[in-house]
């Protein structure tokens, strides 16, 4: 419980870890858009190379990254198969039962799956190298202009950071309640699914009751400490762009230009 990590964050000191979270978000945002414009072998190659080099620079063991992608493997395979059977372009390569597989379908299937894979790889690099609180700070900063249209940016960010802070607390509490209920004879582990789902109710009810109580007390404590909304508030955690961030921006623009040139 002591070294519980929220999300997938892997602590480290690599170049990618030390980038400003805003830089990472911006680059990934454009990467995700641009990937849908890839249409030639070479353009895919450039984007894939960028993703793999980034992944290597994080110095996170490959096993870790791959394990993080586990839940989406199935989706990638499914996308591949779907394109394989639905697309009807090019020559017929072979036939499975009554399905004809075309050469165009094979290429299309590979391309779309690769697209999907790169997309998820890049976004998971963000969560692997950035603490949730840094992401929150970046979002607050980047949504800043929306304050002008009265969008509650500060409140949203505060809500996110408080939820992050309370996740471990509520997990500890869940454990405590489940032990307390187990000692009273509630069985969480055996029996038919229906009974096990029912057993969750005596776990959730006390958890919710205490969460509401916590929220009330927290609000009181925040008010006592002078909290009165985002106005006139200063910030302790500060985001600062460094030469590293500019270097990434420049190389990313270079990659984009190369990519555009490589498009068919």
């Amino acid at each position, binding site marked *: 419980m002591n070294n519980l990590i929220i999300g997938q964050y892997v602590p480290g000191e690599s170049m990618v870890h030390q980038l400003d979270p805003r830089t990472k978000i911006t680059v990934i945002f454009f990467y995700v858009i641009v990937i849908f414009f890839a249409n030639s072998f070479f353009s895919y190659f450039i984007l894939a190379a960028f993703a793999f080099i980034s992944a290597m620079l994080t110095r996170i063991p490959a096993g870790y990254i791959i394990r993080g992608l586990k839940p989406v493997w199935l989706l990638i395979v499914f996308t591949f198969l779907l394109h394989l059977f639905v697309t009807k372009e090019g020559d017929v390569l072979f036939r499975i039962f009554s399905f004809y597989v075309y050469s165009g379908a094979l290429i299309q299937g590979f391309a779309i799956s690769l697209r999907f894979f790169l997309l998820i790889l890049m976004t998971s690099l963000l969560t692997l190298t950035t603490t949730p609180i840094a992401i929150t700070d970046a979002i607050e900063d980047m949504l800043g202009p929306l304050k002008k249209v009265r969008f509650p940016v500060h409140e949203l960010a505060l809500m996110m950071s408080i939820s992050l802070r309370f996740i471990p607390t509520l997990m500890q509490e869940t454990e405590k309640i489940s032990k307390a209920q187990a000692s009273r004879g509630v069985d969480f582990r055996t029996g038919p699914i229906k009974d096990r789902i029912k057993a969750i109710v005596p776990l959730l009810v006390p958890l919710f009751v205490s969460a509401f109580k916590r929220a009330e*007390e927290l609000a009181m404590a925040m008010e006592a400490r002078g909290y009165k909304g985002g106005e006139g508030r200063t910030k302790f*955690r500060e985001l600062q762009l460094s030469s590293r961030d500019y270097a990434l921006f420049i190389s990313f623009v270079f990659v984009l230009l190369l990519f555009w040139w490589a498009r068919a």
Partner: protein
Amino acid sequence: MRELEQSFIQFDEVSFWYNHDEPWALKELSLTIKKNEFVAVIGHNGSGKSTIAKLMNGLLFPQKGEIFVDGLRLSEETVWDIRKKVGMVFQNPDNQFVGTTVEDDVAFGLENHGIPRKEMIERIEQSLKAVGMLDYRKHEPHRLSGGQKQRVAIAGVLAVAPDLIILDEATAMLDPKGRTEIMKTVQRIRKEKKVSILMITHDLHEVTFADRVIVMNRGQKLIEGTPKEVFQQHETLWEIGLDIPFVAKIAAELKQRGIPLNKQPLNNKELLEELWRLHSNM
């Protein structure tokens, strides 16, 4: 008005209720707290002691009577200034920890008051040092003990540099080790920072450190005086269900059996001295 100048906090016949159909939580209560004074308020649940704390920094407003903090009359306009002067530490260590790390939490109060970042960093370091938590500045709350979390809460209050710190049953949820930690911290910062302390508790042992004790019962002041004076009225305390500390109990029992002690002992050492004195007199 002369009284106002000396006292930091003044309650003038303050009455408060939570609901119309409930009895008064506080009834025409008058009290003062001087600068750099350590006052303890005791009483069991529902005696109105926590209400006093919440009135002092404007979390609640009285229905009758007036409250002055450092010469300012408590009202909607002055409440933000008053909250800067009066800091508060609550009972549950978990439910007042706002930041994701120790230093973020200490920063929360400073951020609220719009302190520039440069000064913030200095103040965070100073106040964490004052409570002995500087080594833990990057720690997350779930890696701290209850006593450590309460020390962080005290640091968060200290950083804003208030004139009065209210501890609203701040030790009630701690183990004995955590309690001693907090009591030591409180006594140390009181010496170093020249702040007034208001300690709300139902642990009569903690009361012995105070300059003055106020015993509350049913929204009214029952006894007021130094800890020694209060413990002498042990029968009244028993009647309202408060148990006096072991040392005070022994002194009372000895007295009942016709063995008079010269002065009311507050701790083991004082009791021992008294007993030795008796022994040498025999």
